[in-house]
């Protein structure tokens, strides 16, 4: 007990030491500071409130609409399996880009120095699309195209969508550069659309990319009615003879010759076509399997994540919710339809000149739009609906991959005309 009292005494002496030498006056002054403290706390809370998304939402309520769009994309991807690899990152990106925040603190995508801005650099400068093309090249088998090269013309015919939309956008009052960027939606090729719009019309890139990817996801909805409308039942039943076997030499020569020919014709498409054919050479050479494997798996996955999230985040309501975006969406839908119809009609025209077992099933013309491999899958599905034994997938892959080449060449042509 004695010890406790001694300890208590020592502590009380130590505590009272602080009041020695003017300590009492300081303590008295503190009582007046309480008010100031409360004021400061209020100010702090107010500042915090102004930093929250709820406060900033009042300044720009339109962000809520875009957040709803982002959630809808995620819903479409998960519930209906519409291009989930694209729509989930883009949908999340749309939500990320539309969380309201106080500007000036390097948070948003368009603020220089922010993390999102650094990631967006790859989109702005067109870095990501060629890397995606490298992966596509490394995973695409061109043998159906090599075995029946004449089907390549269908890929060219479907590019009418690009030029028709370019024409339509010009008529609607867009500048030639903007019209060119909008037109490429008709190519049904997301990376190409982003590449071209980043060069020609960076301000419209968000809307163009979202339109291109949305319509690509909706290929199974858009194309079948047009196919049934244009191709009569009798022609939908045509069976094509199986493609010939392609030798390894031909497969290796394809990317080299394709690269040389297409880039000599349209050097502006060099980043896209160069990477596409390089990726394919990695695959077909047979000696660079490790590189091809990285290109078609890890790398394309990483770039898809970065591309999806940043393109989605670029749709900030202030930049995105404009009448121009509405026009772009309208033009995009028309361009998809025109492209599909162009491919189908050209396939029917080709049949006029082809005899006997060389005739083609005109349904494969729809695969000329380059939404790989969705449009080819739609053709297969339609073919099976009309005849359960008619498998058109391999034949449809030929115009499908030539559509990729065609849309990249078209992008190069538009760049060289308009840049």
């Amino acid at each position: 007990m004695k010890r406790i009292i001694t300890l208590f005494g020592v502590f009380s002496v130590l505590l009272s030491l602080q009041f020695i030498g003017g300590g009492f006056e300081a303590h008295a002054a503190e009582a007046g500071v309480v008010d100031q403290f409360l004021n400061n706390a209020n100010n702090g809370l107010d500042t915090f409130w102004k930093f929250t998304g709820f406060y900033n939402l009042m300044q720009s309520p339109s962000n809520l609409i875009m957040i709803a769009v982002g959630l809808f994309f995620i819903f479409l991807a998960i519930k209906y399996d519409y291009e989930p690899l694209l729509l989930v990152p883009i949908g999340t990106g749309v939500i990320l880009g539309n969380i309201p925040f106080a500007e000036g603190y390097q948070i948003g995508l368009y603020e220089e120095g922010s993390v999102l801005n650094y990631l967006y650099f790859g989109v702005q400068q067109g870095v990501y699309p060629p890397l995606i093309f490298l992966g596509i090249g490394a995973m695409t088998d061109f043998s159906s195209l090599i075995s029946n090269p004449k089907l390549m013309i269908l890929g060219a015919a479907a590019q009418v969508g690009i030029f028709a939309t370019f024409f339509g956008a010009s008529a609607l009052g867009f500048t030639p550069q903007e019209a060119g960027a909008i037109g490429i939606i008709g190519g049904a090729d997301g990376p190409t659309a982003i590449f071209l719009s980043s060069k020609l019309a960076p301000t419209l890139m968000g809307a163009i990319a979202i339109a291109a990817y949305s319509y690509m996801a909706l290929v199974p909805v858009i194309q079948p009615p047009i196919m049934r409308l244009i191709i009569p039942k009798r022609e939908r039943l045509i069976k094509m003879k199986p493609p010939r076997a392609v030798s390894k030499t031909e497969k290796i020569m394809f990317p080299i010759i394709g690269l040389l020919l297409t880039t000599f014709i349209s050097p502006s498409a060099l980043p896209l076509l160069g990477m596409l054919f390089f990726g394919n050479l990695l695959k077909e050479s047979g000696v660079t399997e490790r590189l091809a494997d990285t290109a078609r798996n890890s790398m394309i996955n990483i770039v898809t994540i970065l591309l999806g999230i940043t393109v989605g985040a670029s749709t900030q309501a202030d930049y995105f919710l404009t009448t121009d975006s509405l026009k772009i969406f309208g033009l995009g839908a028309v361009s998809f339809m025109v492209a599909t119809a162009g491919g189908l009609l050209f396939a029917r025209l080709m049949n006029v000149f082809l005899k006997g077992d060389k005739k083609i099933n005109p349904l494969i013309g729809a695969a000329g739009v380059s939404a790989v491999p969705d449009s080819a899958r739609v053709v297969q599905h339609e073919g099976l609906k009309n005849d359960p034994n008619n498998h058109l997938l391999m034949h449809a892959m030929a115009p499908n991959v030539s559509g990729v080449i065609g849309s990249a060449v078209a992008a190069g042509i538009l760049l060289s005309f308009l840049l």
Partner: protein
Amino acid sequence: MNLLIVDSMTWTITILGWFIVFVALVFLIAVFNTIPKILNWDTKRILRKKRGVEKGTIKNEDLIISGETNAAIAMALSMYFNELHDEESNVITIKEVKRRYSPWSSKVYGFNNVNFPR
């Protein structure tokens, strides 16, 4: 100059652009139609030399093998090689069984080693 609703430049890009895409792909078609002919040229030469086939009798179509034919050939080869056995001497022998000495049946241990009274 305005033609219809857009200027002449737009018309030019629309028509010329599509035309160039066509030309590029037609060019590729021409090249890829020619390549198999060039590659088959050597095969034709070998056929002529080894089998004495006359010139002009082999058509390019004859050298084209469809994927189905290839699959059938591959299947036949695979079955043929799977059914093959190792080469054997064709001498059937019965191994001679050598009995080793085993104490359990030894006669020696069967004796009762007792001393008979004399």
